[in-house]
């Protein structure tokens, strides 16, 4: 079966950007959007310097991380290996952007014109359906899909992707990697196979490079796909589900043993309501789903096409973002219904489990984001579960204190809090000690180990609240204010940790990490699993 791919001869490239501009023209791309580019990369120190031009595009991976990440099924993989986006489905959530280690996906947040207003050719060629969604290279498949019998994509310029047919150095060659007679296959055979970028990330690219130069590690760049609203989701969601879980579990415990706090009255009536009318437990039952909802709304606000938001559930089979949304819906519906109507332990149990599903899914979204090494670590889901409980504990402590009723067993709260803080700190330290797969991760960890983040995460987020809870256990009279303060510290430190991980340490993987140091299989050894290949619409 055909597998389209490219062979890029780096020795021939002069960085002219003809491929870049030809691609823009062929695909009607708006200002600032380059589906492909030619990087200008300098290595070494004067006078021993190497300057290399490096064409970069979508790798059309055989195992594309974007495909799994996409919650909407907008990202498709064709049987011939082309990874493409169905413009009508994509919601512009950006999860594929951070999943892609090759920076090949481009969100187009709003309508943009070169001169402020559209010129006639822009209006004619710019596809407005692509506003608000993610866009990417599709090997110009429109140029050869409709080609007549006998057409030779890769050889006949009119049926060849614009970059390859325009390249003035004949740097970029396109063709069928599975056809041993194709130019690309022959070039690879003659050159000992060629190299693929970030081979160790096991994405199995369809783009091979010849004559790799020496390339030093690049200065790290931060991801700029997800911002504060994403932090809101990754903080509020876990806090909400953690809060809910701890509230119901401690409730059960109190019900069976000594009551820790006055358990829920059924909601008497909404009329005549005052905050004090709700117990911390009731508050948790309300706030848990509300926090998760805030998280989801934040994500929706960050997505380019929020009104297509329902599409987020389309890829429950593969995408952890779909699953996160699914868990979140189950959690919110059950938790809220239970809080308002039922107060049934089995329902609470299911809701709490779904809640943990939200935290787990969030951890897995990050854990599978190959574009951001600080996220792309195995421990991330564990960290999200533990931190969800820790944050939840912090929130519950604040609620208890606000309620003002002296807890029956303040020491029990301290023990719970200390246990969670200990576990959370341990997981955090384990995260920082993760064996780096990339240089970029090493850099991210170095940043997270800086005093400012130690102060925020270790100090404010863990040690200080631990100390406060310890004192609270010894001094029951001071328990309430100390618990409140500890709760605030846990939440502040937790938010800080989220900002640190999601924004500050979120460096994009160095495109040239271990380039040339790891060699992969030849094209003949790479096959697309038919089950993973979906037909083009």
């Amino acid at each position, binding site marked *: 079966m055909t597998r389209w791919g490219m062979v890029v001869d780096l020795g021939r490239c*002069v960085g*002219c950007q003809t491929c870049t501009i030809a691609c823009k*023209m062929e695909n009607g791309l708006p*200002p600032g959007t380059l589906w492909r580019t030619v990087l*200008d990369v*300098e290595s070494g120190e*004067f006078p021993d*310097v190497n300057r290399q031009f490096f064409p970069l595009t979508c790798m059309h991976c055989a195992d594309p991380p974007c495909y799994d990440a996409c919650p909407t099924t907008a990202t498709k993989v064709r049987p011939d290996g082309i990874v493409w986006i169905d413009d009508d489905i994509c919601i512009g959530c950006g999860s594929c952007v951070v999943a892609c280690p090759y920076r090949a996906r481009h969100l187009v947040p709003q309508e943009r014109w070169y001169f402020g207003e559209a010129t006639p050719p822009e209006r004619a060629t710019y596809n407005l359906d692509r506003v608000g969604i993610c866009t990417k290279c599709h090997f110009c498949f429109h140029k050869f899909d409709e080609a007549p019998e006998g057409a030779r994509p890769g050889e006949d310029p009119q049926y060849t992707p614009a970059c390859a047919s325009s390249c*003035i150095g004949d740097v970029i060659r396109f063709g069928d990697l599975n056809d041993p007679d194709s130019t690309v296959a022959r070039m690879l055979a003659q050159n000992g196979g060629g190299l693929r970028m970030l081979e160790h990330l096991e994405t199995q690219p369809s783009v091979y490079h010849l004559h790799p130069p020496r390339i030093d590690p690049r200065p790290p760049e931060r991801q700029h796909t997800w911002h504060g609203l994403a932090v809101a989701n990754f903080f509020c969601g876990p806090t909400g589900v953690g809060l809910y879980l701890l509230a119901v579990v401690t409730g059960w415990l109190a019900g069976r043993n000594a009551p820790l706090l006055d358990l829920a009255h059924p909601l008497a009536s909404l009329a005549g309501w005052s905050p004090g009318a709700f117990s911390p437990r009731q508050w948790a039952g309300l706030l848990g789903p509300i926090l998760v909802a805030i998280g989801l709304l934040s994500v929706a606000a960050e997505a380019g096409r929020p009104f297509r938001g329902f599409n987020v559930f389309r890829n429950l089979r593969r995408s952890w973002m779909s699953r996160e949304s699914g868990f979140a819906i189950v959690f919110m519906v059950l938790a809220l219904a239970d809080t308002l109507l039922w107060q049934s332990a089995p329902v609470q149990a299911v809701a709490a489990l779904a809640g943990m599903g939200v935290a787990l899914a969030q951890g897995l979204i990050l854990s599978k984001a190959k574009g951001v090494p600080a996220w792309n670590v195995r421990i991330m889901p564990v960290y999200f579960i533990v931190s969800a409980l820790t944050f939840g504990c912090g929130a519950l402590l604040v609620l208890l204190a606000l309620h003002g009723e002296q807890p029956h067993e303040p020491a029990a709260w301290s023990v719970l809090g200390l246990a969670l803080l200990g576990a959370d700190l341990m997981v955090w330290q384990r995260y920082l000690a993760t064996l780096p797969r990339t240089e970029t991760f090493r850099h991210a960890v170095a940043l997270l180990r800086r005093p400012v983040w130690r102060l925020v995460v270790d100090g404010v987020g863990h040690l200080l609240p631990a100390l406060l809870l310890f004192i609270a256990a010894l001094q029951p009279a001071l328990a309430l204010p100390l618990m409140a303060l500890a709760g605030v510290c846990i939440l502040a430190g937790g938010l800080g940790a989220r900002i640190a991980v999601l924004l500050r340490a979120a460096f994009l993987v160095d495109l040239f990490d271990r380039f040339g140091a790891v060699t992969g299989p030849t094209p003949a050894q790479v096959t697309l699993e038919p089950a993973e290949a979906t037909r083009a619409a």
Partner: protein
Amino acid sequence: MSVQRIPVYCSQCVAGPDLIHVEVQDGVAQRIVPNFDFHAEHPAQGRVCVKAYGLIQKMYNPNRIKGPLKRGNPRKGLHEDPQWVPIGWDEALELVAERLRAIRAKGLVDESGNPRLALTLGQGGVAPGYLGTFPAFMAAWGPLDQSIGAGQGVKCYHSEHLYGEFWHRAFIVAPDTPLCKYVLSFGNNGMASSGVTGVWRHAEAKTRGLKRVQVEPHLSITGAFADEWVPVRPKTDAAFLFALIHTVLHETDWRQTCDVPFLRWRTNSPYLVGPHGYFLRDPASRKPLIWDEGRGAAVPFDDPRLDEPALTGTHVVTGVEVGPDGELWRHASVEVSPAFQRLLEHVRPYTPEWAAEICGVPADRVRGVARDYLANAQVGETIEIDGHTFPYRPVAVLLGKTVANGWGGYEAAWGRTVLTTLVGALEVPGGIVGAGVRLNRPANDRFKTVVPGPDGFMVGALNPTDKEHWQKPSNRSAYQSLVPLLGSGPWAPALGPAHLPWLFMDHTPRNWPQQNLPDVWINIRANPAISHWDTGQVTKMLAEIPFTVCFGYTQDETNWFADVLLPESPDTESLQLIRVGGAQFVEQFWRHQGWAIRQPVVSQPVYDTRDMTEITTRIAAKVGILEDYNAAINRGRGIGISLEKFYPDGVLNPQREYGVEDIWDRACRAASVEASGGDVSHDLAWFKEHGAYLAPFQQDHWYLHTAMEAKGLRYELPYQERILRMGRELGNRLHEMGVDWWEPQLAEYSPLPGWKDFPAIWEAVAAERGKRAEDYGLWMLTTRSMQYAWGSTVSLPLMADVAANVSTHFGVVVNAATARAEGIADGDEIWVESPLDRAKGRAIVKQGIRPDVILTTQQFGHWVTPVAKDLGTPNLNRLITTGLSLTDATGSGADLVKVRIYKA
């Protein structure tokens, strides 16, 4: 409606034209794609340059000048808003014609002998591809001053152009890349400047195994492509080249390593040189003498019995020397040596150790380059091409800008050409070949310019320097008077000391005719306020010119001073036919040649613009020179092909005003007749449909060797007797006028150029301006950008979008160590200050540049041109002074200036 593909050409730089298709749908031009119809004929499979893809945006750019404008504000100045008033075409052309008629009434030249009408064409050598029939207007007009420059001369490969044409009819030099194995490049940035065919050929050659060594102060685009980078001090390239020649001649057995038969029979190496430095000649025939070792006697160079020309030794000979202005020295039994012996002596002191000190490059590296060069030269080998056996010498030495122009340019060009000559790699397969002629004629056939002269060399289009024929100043740069090598063809004014008029119009130099401003200055697509040195001087003069007509695309820094602003229809909106293929500029070496068309791609221009041919015809009629204008077209001016010769049935009736399509239809017929040798005659409709007509072109026509062999001629190398004589004669002429300000330039005319401290010439600028040289410790240089070269794309945001990927764009490149020492971080705003002025830009901190050098790309620093003015790149021109001290004998300068930098 289906997509129509309209064939046109892109000639936005001299490395084209590129043949393209414009895809049009529903009356809107939407895309540029390469014209793959010529996939087989085109040397790069029909692919086109990045700039061509900007043509759509160029057409629909809302910042274009949308119709004729006249100035509303009578005052002119940097801060005087022109207050444009939109007017109709009739009124605009009448405004222009009225001024032109006034000139004709008053007399075409002023009391100083300078034309009252001046004309400046922009974009270097690109203009002919866009001027329509305007050159016919120029021919019809009479004396016209084209010498006011917009940056040419001081910015081009000037010494290469002038000496290259003189020595081997090479207006520009290219490697015979498809066969070359080793390229030694001194700052030649061909991967940014040699266009699509250049890049294609070099990429193919690299895969084949060509090795490239790049000697330059910063790691350019081409340096990135090279195998080795040698970071040399600016303006010391000649020393490096001299040391290479020394190494070849004194550290190897040159009788083994050099191409001795070539030196003996194809150069002036065996010509005997007399005590005054002129060839020793036969007293009767005045032919230069050669010592024939076989017979032990001196014989005229063309003696048929000459058997073994001596290259070395001292011989006692009787003969005469002919000096300047016919001065004659008769020698009886004088000791003389062949030119080659003189060369051996001349380069003896130029050891690699000597060069190492000057160039900042280890001596071993120089020796290594010399060794590799000789190893690849394959002296003695031959190759068969088109049934002709050629010497095969796959080595090439290239020069770049700033190396081949300004002081030191002659020395570098000579050094390069002599190094090439030593191994016989001149104009043969694999070696260096000339690409096109511009000063000699006919411009479309290099071989026809190979005309034998009396001394066994080619005669060239030179300006005479003898008393009787020397031409007194008759235009504002006085190129015919000051630069003998230029000749006086259509390209000569642009290549003269075209920066001097800006200076001389302000202050006439001593004992020189009073230099007045032109009554009318027509400026077509030039922007000297940006592209010329000394922005302050240029803008001062622009404000003083009484009447300025600008053909403009957008509002820019120069047409800000215009009285009338005319927007001609650009690339994809107007009609023209030009030559394509053959062996032309930079690396356009085709196996086909012919003609290509540019045509309007949509039925109506986007704005109220007119075709240049229509504008020209109207002005010619209004001015009353229609008859001469039509006659000039009949001779081929403007349309590039003689109707009289190739389409006599179609010659224009001199009295009639012809339409655009009518004129070009005739041109199409004549051109196709010429290209096909009379086999076909295609009309305009045919060209509009097919885009181009091509006929085969023999590869043996790439190499001048074919013509030199056929005519038994020698290259005038290594010894420069004629240069010496013309310099002395020119000195005599100027001294007769009392001119004493051209003395340093006169000293450049030497038969064997030697090393002078060229960097010191620039270092002295600070003292000239009352500043301390040590305060300006950095060299500022410029580099080429393929996306912006020739400037026609600076106002296109699309181009900025993709150009930003090339890291040296939009800022000032500073070496990392230098930046650290100055406390400058990547991205910081910095000031670059020269003794003249200062300019601001963003620091781009890199390792690939010498610590004593900073670099900026192209020429930006715009303050009016839309888009360009927001790109944050300083312009070297603002920092450099236009002066005689930085002007070499060919009338050129170089883009470098001593500066200091500090954080803004």
